[in-house]
Structure formats: C-alpha cells, structure tokens
C-alpha cells in the first residue's frame, strides 16, 4: 500500500533534543507545578469505584515519602527500595518518593512467588520495600533472607475517598479473602507519609545533591524467562532520554494537559513504566490506572467513565478488547491513538482495531535493557503492518550476523543498538553485561530485517526459531497467518523435535468459533504458507500461557512437549 522510498545505506539517527532536566525529580517538580490542580492519576476498580490524586497531591505525598525514606529510615542516596505494587495510587507516590530520595527503585511483580521475590530482593540488596497488603504473607516467608529493614504496606484502594476505600478494602478482606494475615513489623503507607511529613516539612529537593543523569534510578529485572533474572541498571538520564525519544515520535497527538491515558498494563513492567507513566506524566496527562485487566471486562467502567484518548497494550489485550461486545458496540469516542508493543502485534488485530476505532494503533519495539523504546511506527506518516518502524531519534541500529559482521541489505540479522536509552549493564553481573553490551552496542537477541526505506521488521527471537529440515521458520509469521483466520482467537507456534525434519512446527490455537476444526486450519495455512512453514501438529486450548503483561510464553509450551517426550 505505501510504496517504500528507497534510501541509500545506513541512515544516521534522527537528532534528539536533550532533556530539559538533569534528573526525574526535577522533571516531576516542574510538571507538577504546571498542572498542579489537574488530576494526575485515577485508579478504577471493576465496579467503577475509584480514587484520584492531583499533580499537586502526587508531588506533596511523594515528597513526604522521600522524607520518610531518608529522614526516618535513614536510607542513603543509591540505596535500593523495592516496589511490589499493582497499578494503584500508591505506585506513583512510592516510586516518585524513592526517586526524590535519590534512592533506586526495584520494580517487582506482585505475583512473584516467595522464591522469586527472595532472589530479586537479595540480588538488588533492597533495604526497604513497599508492598501491597494482598501479598504481605509472601514477604513474611522470605524477609529473613533479605537485607530489607523497612516494610511499608499499601492498600489497593490507597487514597480513595474514605467510604469508597473502606468498601473496596472490606470486600477484598472479607469477601474475596485476599488480604492475608501477617506478623510483619511494618508501617502503613499512610503512617509512613505522616512520619515523613513530621520529620522534615517542605519539599524533598534537599536530596538532589549528587543526583544527575548518570545516577541510577531503576533496577528493572528481566530475563527470568531464561535462567536467572538480572537487574538492568537504568539511570535518570536513560529514562529521561527515552521519554523524549518516545515524545519525539508521538508528540503530534499528545497535547500537554489534555490527554487521558488508560494504563491496563502493569506499571512494574518497563513498557507501561516509561510510556504510560513517565511520558504521560511529563505531558500532564490524566492517567487512568486499572489494577487488574483480567478479565478484560474489568476495563469496561474505565472506558465508560473517562474520555480515554490514549491506550497502550500488548496484542493479547487488544485482541481481548476486540472480542468484547461492550467495546465493539461502543468504541471509545475520544481515542486519538494506541500504542502496541511488548510482543509482536498481529496485523489482523491491528487492522480490526483501526477499523473499529478509526485511530492508528502504532507498533513499537523495545526491551528492558533499552528503557525500553527502540523504535516505533510513525504516528501520522505511512506505515506498514508487521514492521516496528524507524529507530527512535538518537538511536543507531545495525543488523549483524553471528560473527558481529553487518548482514547484506534485506537479510535477517541480530538487531544491535546504541543510544542514550541503553542501560549501564546488569546489576553486579559483569559477565552477563559483557555478553550483551559490546563497545556500547546492545545485542538484543532479536532477529530483524531492514527494508530498503530503513523501516525495521522483527522476524523473531533468536532462540524461538524453528529449524525445519534446515529451513528457518519464524513462529511469528505462522502465528500471524493463523490469527488471520476468523475462527481463531489467538495462536502460539513452537518447534518440537521431529525424527524426519529435525524440528517440526506445532501450533496451539484458542478458538473464537467453537466449530473450527483442524482441517480448516490446515487448508488455511496451505493457502498461505510454504509447506515447511505449515504446522504439522495442532492442538486446541482454552487459553495460552502468558506473562503478566500478556506475552505468550512459548517456552512453557516447549517445556510441556519436552517433558512429554521424555516420559514417552
């Protein structure tokens, strides 16, 4: 549809204007002053109950929390503070408080098992934790193994109006029985703020000494899917650069102080952290936080009650929304654009979304180690489905073969990048760092192709490739073909050992149409894929294993098959 304009050779990166601020607390203070009375965050429960904080309140509460950490807990600049919170009003207060204190935030998935928590807390050397009460019992089980000396407990309906918050909490505690008993020595977030305010009145800018672009802001753990989780070290400069990079690509549809963004993805994940939280905060947007987007019906009241202008999500979230009648019958009227990432978007899903909402859904590419945004499709210009667009301003990208040499134009190669958003390395893991950071180039492990116009396409993860009789099969391609079938809700493709071809393609399919049969899929694929790419095995499932943000976990499917093979 959009004819590519040929361009010669490698392009230099588009220029990036430097951030106006040396560190995040300076940005937060400026923005909060500018938009003081505007609502910054609203947390929406599935039944519509909600609480909100204005920019001024976020600023004041996070100042108090910074004082609590520094003056009451006696933490020092650079000390790690773990945050184990779902999307809720406690999150921005705690996170910004940690940064204002000059400490380093350690984002932690609230659904982690005690063993995973223990690893992350020990590895990061966290001295304090802010945890939601729903999971306090898990912390109790492993606290002794860690260096954590200060435990702050937050409630899900933190900062809600008292009656409403009381009802939400009572339902969680007495009906859902999700608030476990614990014997932790802990303070509540409300008490911590009061202690902080009492200890030091006034702003937290007193802790900015020594804080600069090179100061560590965040330890973002990644790689849990392959062995041990490592903490990517992201500085204030990394994050500020990445938010300017994101803005450079999306500013045309982000009006300061006018946007309402729906945050259904968890803020402890780098995608929502940077794109929804930092970028939208920087632009004075109203951020609508949903604690749990599953089932997707939990988003209904958020869409009904707030004039959502921006959404970000992963393929599975968009796909799920498109299967909801309340959504398709009344698509959001104020929407300006949507951003997709985290895992490959399927062209069929993008097409249906854009047709329904009449607004663009742009796909981007990123990874924790790059804060995370590396590239995005243009918001207003021409774009092709299944591409990840152009590198963000200030980002150099090259494609290399296994020896690190550039691949020929149009050939697939590992995507390497260099730019101001690239992490400083993995926390206390020089060997692991040396494996991915070479001469300033971040080796992503993703295989990409560069089209003649410079637009990038991700072909697949290096380790997800299926090798059928010596031919590379990219699972993404096969999944996308399966997803085109109207009877298919979603699909996952992996390689399984095969006596004849080495590996064979195996497809897991969740049906939209219960009458869909394997033969329908066979003929569908036969019409669209070369023979070696076609799935040999099909299996229908009720659902697919996924990460917290909805990325399909192919490795779990592979593990199932391998264990079945071993048993046989």
């Amino acid at each position: 549809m959009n004819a590519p304009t040929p361009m010669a050779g490698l392009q230099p990166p588009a220029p990036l204007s430097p951030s106006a601020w040396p560190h995040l607390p300076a940005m937060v203070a400026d923005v909060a002053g500018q938009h003081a009375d505007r609502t910054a965050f609203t947390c929406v429960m599935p039944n519509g109950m909600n609480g909100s904080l204005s920019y001024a309140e976020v600023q004041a509460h996070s100042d108090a929390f910074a004082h609590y950490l520094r003056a009451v807990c006696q933490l020092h600049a650079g000390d790690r503070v773990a945050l184990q919170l779902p999307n809720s009003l406690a999150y921005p207060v705690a996170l910004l408080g940690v940064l204002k204190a000059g400490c380093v935030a350690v984002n932690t998935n609230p659904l982690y098992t005690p063993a995973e928590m223990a690893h992350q807390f020990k590895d990061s050397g966290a001295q304090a934790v802010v945890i939601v009460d729903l999971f306090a019992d898990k912390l109790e089980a492993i606290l002794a193994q860690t260096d954590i000396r200060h435990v702050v407990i937050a409630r899900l309906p933190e900062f809600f109006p008292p009656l409403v918050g009381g009802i939400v909490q009572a339902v969680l505690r007495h009906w859902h029985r999700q608030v476990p008993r614990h014997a932790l020595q802990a303070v509540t977030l409300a008490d911590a703020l009061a202690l902080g305010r009492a200890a030091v009145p006034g702003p937290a800018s007193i802790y900015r000494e020594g804080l600069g672009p090179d100061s560590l802001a965040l330890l973002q753990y990644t790689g849990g899917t392959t062995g041990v989780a490592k903490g990517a070290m992201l500085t204030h400069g990394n994050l500020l650069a990445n938010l300017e990079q994101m803005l450079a690509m999306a500013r045309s549809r982000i009006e300061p102080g006018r946007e309402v963004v729906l945050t259904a993805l968890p803020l402890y994940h780098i995608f929502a952290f940077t794109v929804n939280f930092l970028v939208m905060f920087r632009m004075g947007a109203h951020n609508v936080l949903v604690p749990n987007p599953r089932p997707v019906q939990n988003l209904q009241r958020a869409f009904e009650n707030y004039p959502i202008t921006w959404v970000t999500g992963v393929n599975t979230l968009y796909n799920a929304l498109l299967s909801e009648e309340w959504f398709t019958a009344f698509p959001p009227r104020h929407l300006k654009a949507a951003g997709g990432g985290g895992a490959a978007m399927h062209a069929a899903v993008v097409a249906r979304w854009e047709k329904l909402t009449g607004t663009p859904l742009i796909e981007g590419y990123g990874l924790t180690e790059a804060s995370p945004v590396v590239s995005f499709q243009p918001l207003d210009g021409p774009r092709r489905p299944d591409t990840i667009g152009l590198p963000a301003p200030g980002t150099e990208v090259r494609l290399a073969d296994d020896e690190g040499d550039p691949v020929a134009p149009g050939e697939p190669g590992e995507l390497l990048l260099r730019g101001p958003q690239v992490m400083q390395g993995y926390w206390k893991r020089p060997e692991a760092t040396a494996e991915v950071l070479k001469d300033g180039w971040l080796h992503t492990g993703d295989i990409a192709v560069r089209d003649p116009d410079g637009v990038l396409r991700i072909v697949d993860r290096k380790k997800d490739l299926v090798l059928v009789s010596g031919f590379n099969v990219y699972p993404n391609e096969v999944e996308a073909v399966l997803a085109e079938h109207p009877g298919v809700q979603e699909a996952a493709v992996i390689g399984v050992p095969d006596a004849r071809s080495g590996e064979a393609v195996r497809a897991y399919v969740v049906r939209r149409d219960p009458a869909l049969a394997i033969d329908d899929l066979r003929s569908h694929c036969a019409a669209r894929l070369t023979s070696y790419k076609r799935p040999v095995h099909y299996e229908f499932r009720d659902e697919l294993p996924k990460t917290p943000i909805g990325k399909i976990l192919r490795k779990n499917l592979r593990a199932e098959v391998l264990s079945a093979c071993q048993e046989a």
Partner: protein
Amino acid sequence: MLSDFETQLLSVMMMVIMLGMGASLTFKDFALALRKPTGIGIGLVTTYVLTPLVGVTLATVLNLPPAYAVGLILMACLPGGTTSNIFNYFSKGVLSLSLLMTVVSTLFAVLLVPLILGLLTQNIEGEWRIPPENVARVLFVLLVPTLIGMGLRKWKPNVGAVIEMVGGALGVVVILFLIVSWVPRNYGLLLTTPWQVYAGAIGLGVVGFAVGYAFARLVRQDKRRARTIALETGIQNGPLGVLIVLLSFEGSQQQQVLLIPVLYSLFIVLTSSALTVWFRRITAREEAARDNAKIGALPSPA
C-alpha cells in the same frame, strides 16, 4: 399486617433498591441487551412464560384458595431483582448474563407484568384480583428511581457504585426487616397456615431454579450459564410483590394476600443461599479441574 409507617418505609426502601438497580445499568447496557437475541429470548421466556406457569401450576395443584393463589401468581409474574445479581455474583455465575436478564425483564415489566397477571388471574373472583393498572402504576413509578440511579452513576461513578451495592444489599435487608417486624406478630398465623401455602411459597423458588436450569440446558447453554439462568429464574423481586399487595389491598384481605409474598421472600433467601454455596463449589471445582489439567501438562520443576 403492616402499619402505615412500615408500608411507607418499605416504599422508600423499594425506591432505594430501584435506585441501586439503575446505578448498575447504563443506556449502553440496554442497547447491548437489544443486540443479543438469545439473552433477551431466554430472559423473556423464563420471566414471563416459565415462572408464571410454575406459579399457576403450583396454585392449581395445591388447590390454593384465591387469596393465596393471587399472591403466588403475582410473585410468579414479577421481574427478577438486583438480589438475583448479588447471588449470582457470590455463586461465581456469569454476571453479564445475570445483568442482561434483569435488564430485559425490567424493561418489559411495565407492559408484560400487568398483561400476564391479568391473564392468569382471570378465573379468580373479582374482589381478590389485583387491578393490572395498579401494577403498571407501581412499576412505572419505580422507573423514576431507576432512571435517577442511572443518572447518578453517570454523574459520579463512586456514588453510583456505592448505591448499587447498598441497593442490592437492601433487597436482603428488606427481607430481614420483614422477618423481624412481621414474623413475631404473626407467628400464630404462621402456625395455623396450611402446608400448601408453604409448599407454594417455597416451591415457586425451588421449582423455578429447576425449570430455569432445565430450560437453559435445553437451549444449549453451558453449565455455568445454566446455573446463572437457574438463579435468575427462581429469584423474583420479593419486596416489589409485597409493595404491590400493600398498595392494592387493605385490612384482613391485605394480610391474607400478603402471606405468600412474605413467605416467598423469607424462604428464597434461604434456598438461594444454599444454592449459591453449592453452585460456588461446582464452579470452583470446574475451575480447579481446568487449572489442574494445565498444571498436569507442565513439567514438574524438578
């Protein structure tokens, strides 16, 4: 018999219940409901064909005198209330379906309740009949708080959500109120009440559950949806029935007709609670079985 004050209190509570029902709805819900012919069909058939038939059949089989028959048939003709949504929530039913059926039955209540009630009470002596206009008027008046509830939800989601919960809980509170204020003063009556009346009052709910479930399975709804439909079919808007009787009869006549709606309201709380606990267990077991199937398919961590 209830005092004037109690009648007024009941009316006010009924208003709040309808306010809560309104706060659980949006105009979009109505529009969505109209797009779902299966849901509408099931809702209409269970509310306005199956339960009325259950009521009439029970009244005939048990050979109830007109005073009781009218009470029973009235209860059988009423739409489902928000109470059924609460029980469905607690029993892990399909909430959207429950809501849809309540929406549909309420939407059509102003028209269908008087019509069917008139039809089914044709053979009953005139003095015992409930004038259909009366029923229509009560239902129409109750539409006002429903609309206000919808407005409240749009205006302030927090207010809407709180009222939705309060209204739903009040359905149960009203029944407790009846137990506390009505039962002690009428225990003599309760002791002399023939067993047929009890059978009718309890049977309407219990047979309603069974018929609703059977019908749902017949029209090929899965088991979880069928459980939702069963609860939705058996649970009628009890307080509404009590209110209509209070506004239609006086004196000892009122007391006699009131008996079945009150008894129904008392017993439906018990039977629905029992059923809810049971359904909840079944759903939990089904969910666990699904999870186990998945875990079993995964390799053990060793």
